[in-house]
């Protein structure tokens, strides 16, 4: 079996190379490298810029924002027209018009209109606290407690922090469509029938395809990683995770691809699969977003495991958990793929 598996894998790698699948993967990797290095910023501006028109004699609020103590940077204007022009110049700017004597008596906040309710509420609450402080009222004191204390890790630059998502989406998800294309091209050539009358088995045939996609995923990952964060990363966990995940995801794709006769029939379902498996990425950006069915999908632990592999915090359980989930996925999906292959595709192909 080992000899046949290696032979099938070598054949599949030749075919994906000559079909230009490898070229597509390398091209995509270089596009991502350019995007990470030159398009996506290392830091995101997360605080608003406040345009302050302070008509009070002491201009206490203006000083507060100019020193940064207001929680946002402030730019001073001295007229309604200047305020309107400054607000027009930046989509993320807020307007603050302060009138009164020694203390602010009347404050007008101008929003762009894009801000959500939470942002507005937070800004206004902060503003009230600042005005109260100016009036001499001390801010309330809170005691805090943390349920899940973790070692605060060094936060990676924003562009690099997207690496796990890019690696997941391209190295793994593209494999789903490529493996289906590979399967259907062999079906169209009729070589699947030629293979069926040889001693080669379905298990080896499908496993070789998923391993070939794992190799493509590794190639993509090496290029993107080396040309962005560099060579000094934990290659073992990163490449191991990618290889295993690409193999597991493509086996799932093969289970489903075997239910369709042609690639045009499969393609819509294939896209739905990639979207469903891609949904847990939302949990990566908003960790509190994690419905139970996110966690069942093998892609959910994968993005977190990749983040841990790229930017270690000592949470090795995240990697181990993802590895076990991928192995379990392979163990369940591979027999299903063999069954579907035997019953559906071959029967109709014959």
């Amino acid at each position, binding site marked *: 079996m080992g000899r046949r598996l290696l032979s099938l894998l070598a054949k599949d790698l*030749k075919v994906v190379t000559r079909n230009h699948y490898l070229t597509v993967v390398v091209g995509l990797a270089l596009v991502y490298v350019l995007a990470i290095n030159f398009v996506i910023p290392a830091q995101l501006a997360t605080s608003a810029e406040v345009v302050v028109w302070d008509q009070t004699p002491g201009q206490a609020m203006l000083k507060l924002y100019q020193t940064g103590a207001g929680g946002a940077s402030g730019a001073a204007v001295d007229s309604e027209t200047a305020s309107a022009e400054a607000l027009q110049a930046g989509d993320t700017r807020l307007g603050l018009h302060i009138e009164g004597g020694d203390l602010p008596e009347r404050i007008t906040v101008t929003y762009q209109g894009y801000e959500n309710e939470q942002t507005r509420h937070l800004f206004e609450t902060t503003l009230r606290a600042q005005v109260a402080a100016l009036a001499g009222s001390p801010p309330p004191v809170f005691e805090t407690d943390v349920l899940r204390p973790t070692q605060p890790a060094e936060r990676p630059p924003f562009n690099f922090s997207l690496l796990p998502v890019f690696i997941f989406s391209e190295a793994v998800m593209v494999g789903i469509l490529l493996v289906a294309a590979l399967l259907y091209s*062999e079906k169209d050539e009729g070589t699947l029938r030629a293979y069926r009358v040889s001693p080669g088995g379905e298990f080896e045939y499908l496993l070789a395809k998923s391993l070939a996609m794992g190799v493509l995923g590794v190639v993509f990952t090496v290029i993107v990683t080396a040309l962005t964060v560099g060579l000094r990363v934990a290659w073992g966990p990163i490449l191991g995770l990618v290889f295993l995940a690409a193999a597991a995801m493509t086996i799932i794709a093969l289970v489903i691809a075997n239910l369709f006769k042609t690639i045009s029939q499969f393609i819509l379902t294939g896209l739905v699969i990639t979207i469903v498996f891609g949904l847990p990425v939302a949990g990566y950006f908003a960790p509190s977003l994690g419905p139970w069915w996110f966690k069942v999908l093998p892609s959910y632990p994968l993005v977190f495991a990749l983040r841990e592999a790229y930017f270690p915090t000592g949470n090795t359980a995240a990697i181990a958990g993802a590895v076990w989930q991928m192995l379990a996925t392979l163990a369940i999906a591979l027999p299903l793929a063999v069954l579907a292959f035997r019953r559906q595709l071959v029967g109709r192909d014959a």
Partner: protein
Amino acid sequence: MSSDMVSPRVGSEEVYRVSTVIDVRELRHSYSRAGKPAVDGISFRVAQSEVFGFLGPNGAGKSTTQKILTGLLPVQEGEVKVAGHDIRHPTGEFFNLIGVSFETPNVYLKLTGLENLRFFASLYDGPTADPVELLRRVGLEDAANRRAATYSKGMRQRLVLARSLINHPRLWFLDEPTGGLDPTATQWVLDLVREQRDRGATVFLTTHNMFVADALCDRVAFLNEGRIAALDTPRSLKLGYGERVVVVEYRAGGGGDVGEGGGYGGQLRRETLSMTSESERRRLEELVAAGHLETVHSQEATLEEVFIKVTGRGLA
């Protein structure tokens, strides 16, 4: 052994008792529940080293039967044993014994001819043929390192043929092996089949080319609408179903005189005389006695004519 000779072993019950390689009994197969069966209760046996022809027009059920025999389609009804294996559950051991040349040139287009053969050779457990030598046998040695995508249809068909021999098959299935081939390549195929038979392989040949069947097969089965209409040696079929006639050419009205140029005088005439008719046999005797005959040819029916007579339809 000449291609026109019939193996003395073939056809005798003793041969099949001892060396049956394919044993098919009451085989039926339908592609749909309501539709007419593609194969409708056929039974036959093939002995070791026999070249067995499965003949019939398109849609007769030939390819369906071959797909069942090679494990590509399941047995729905009936019994099929191939090389001692129950074909309902084909094993790797079974696939090590057979070689299949498909009608469609199904090769890996992105691989070279040599890579195609090397890949398939790696799938078998036993000794395999030298891919370079096989390519030479089918006239592809110069194209060995070219991708199959650049091959013509005929070249791909020859590559399929070579691939089917990579494992030295004991049982060789050929589906329309000469389709799309030029006369030279067709002759290579005929030679290869004879060579394989001589080394002891059994050949199951599916074709609608009666010339190829007549040239190669020890026995042929005529398949029509899923049923076997006749099964025998080509010679027996031609003798049994064809008319036994002779065609004679003679000079009439010349009185047997030698004319200019060394020929007999009188008008050249041709008659076809049936040897099963008393009056026509007497006519032949008269012509012989008169000494006017110039040529005499026995005329047997072709397999195609026999097929039309048996099934009432042509092979197109």
